[in-house]
């Protein structure tokens, strides 16, 4: 039983991480139906900005005196940085292709992903960068079950973001504009929505989420590497699809599910096949529910 609970906690944490990335993924997808391969790279860039800023602050001694201020400051700066990066990428690589076939945009995104990943490698080096360790330690013990503070923080932040995003999308003016743009770009400009700006804002929100996720993951695992974005990017994509791509709550549920399946697959059956379990469940769910668990938001569009 203890074993089960510990594995469940592990699964929820991993799932929370996937969900954090998937939230941004699914928002961008929802609005321009683009599989944004570069999203994983925004996540890595966020993680790197966290390392750069935190180690800069810690070398100057600020981190020891004012840890929480430094952390929140770094997160905000990293979010701004990734927003800048994302808007730029959107303007350069996606916007000119808005009228082309979706595969061209997909390739453009793939190119950007390779570009940013190697840009990070060239500027930051090939070695993984360690995070200052002051946040990663500590936790609760319940007998043999251990829950670290970071695990709780990750889950809390994921849930908070989910609530926040749902309010943003369903209750605010910008949220309505997003939904309208997602459904019909021409019509939304006929009612006065600046769809380009709405798309940029969506990218900014998505990239900020990715940046926050990058820092969380960096602190949880203790390091960041230039290629850290790729695999979680794909898993997050799978999570977003599992939940019904374009659906925010779906992305969260999909992320948690994939995380839990992976961990239980590894914990109870075999760890080398854990990705197989995750993908088989994904395929199985999609076979019976071709539009994902939460359904919704499927445009009948193909390649």
């Amino acid at each position, binding site marked *: 039983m203890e074993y089960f609970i510990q594995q469940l906690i592990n699964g929820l944490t991993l799932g929370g991480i996937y969900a954090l990335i998937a939230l941004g993924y699914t928002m961008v997808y929802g609005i321009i139906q683009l599989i944004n391969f570069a999203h994983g790279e925004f996540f890595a860039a966020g993680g790197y900005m966290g390392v750069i800023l935190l180690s800069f602050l810690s070398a100057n001694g600020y981190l020891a005196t004012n840890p929480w201020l430094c952390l929140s400051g770094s997160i905000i700066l990293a979010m701004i940085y990734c927003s800048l990066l994302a808007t730029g990428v959107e303007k350069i690589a996606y916007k000119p292709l808005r009228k082309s076939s979706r595969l061209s945009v997909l390739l453009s995104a793939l190119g950007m992903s390779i570009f940013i990943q190697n840009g990070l490698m060239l500027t930051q080096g090939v070695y993984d960068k360690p995070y200052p360790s002051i946040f990663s330690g500590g936790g609760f013990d319940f007998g043999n079950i251990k829950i670290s503070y970071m695990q709780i923080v990750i889950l809390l932040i994921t849930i908070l973001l989910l609530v926040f995003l749902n309010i943003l999308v369903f209750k605010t003016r910008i949220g*309505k504009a997003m939904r*309208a743009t997602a*459904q019909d770009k*021409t019509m939304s*400009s*006929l*009612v*006065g*929505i600046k*769809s380009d700006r709405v798309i940029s804002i969506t990218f900014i929100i998505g990239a900020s989420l990715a940046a926050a996720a990058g820092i969380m993951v960096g602190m949880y695992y203790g390091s960041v590497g230039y290629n850290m974005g790729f695999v979680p990017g794909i898993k997050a994509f799978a999570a977003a699809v599992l939940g019904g791509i374009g659906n925010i709550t779906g992305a969260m549920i999909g992320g948690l599910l994939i995380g839990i399946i992976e961990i239980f697959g590894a914990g109870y059956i075999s760890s080398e096949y854990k990705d197989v379990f995750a993908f088989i469940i994904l395929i199985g769910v999609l076979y019976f529910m071709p539009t994902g668990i939460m359904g919704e938001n499927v445009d009948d569009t193909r390649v």
Partner: protein
Amino acid sequence: MKKPILELKNVTSGYNEIQVLKDISIEVFEGEIVTLIGGNGAGKTTTLMTISNIVPATSGEILYYGKPIHKKPADVLPGIGLCQVPEGRRIFPRLSVENNLEMGAFLRKDHKKIAEDIEYIYQLFPILKERKKQPGGALSGGEQQMLAIGRAIMGRPKLLLLDEPSLGLAPLITLKIFEIIEEINKKGTTVLLRLCNGNGKNYRQRYR
């Protein structure tokens, strides 16, 4: 002489290489209902899309209240009172009826008046009130057309561009929709209407 509210001067436009409009000129005066008619593929829809700058004009001028608007992006036009009900209605399918109506007033900030206007639309189309929580995509064709017109009225247009409001609708509903167009027109909205040939015959006289 009265100045036209909308004036197209030698406008040319089209999609990519295909030129659809060649040198057309139109004048629309305040308070009028003007009808565009023509055969299939004559460029009626393109004309309306060019006025709204969804399809950019390659040459010529479009003046609205005497000011050129053909360089302005489509999304500022509703703000200056130029709204369109495009071809095929284009309801936001996953927004509720009420949200669809609210979207029509996207650029307006006067919340009280928006609420009043929604009530007004519900008076015009009582069926919409019954279905206000349903997603737009679940409505029937006629209801969607009503919703589309209602949404355009929400922008408090001075000039309303209507693209084939009667397409594919039952004659009774068509009649109802034209009554409402008339009513809006009496309230001070100029209307530029685009009709297909067949329907045009029945209604052209009445609205001249």
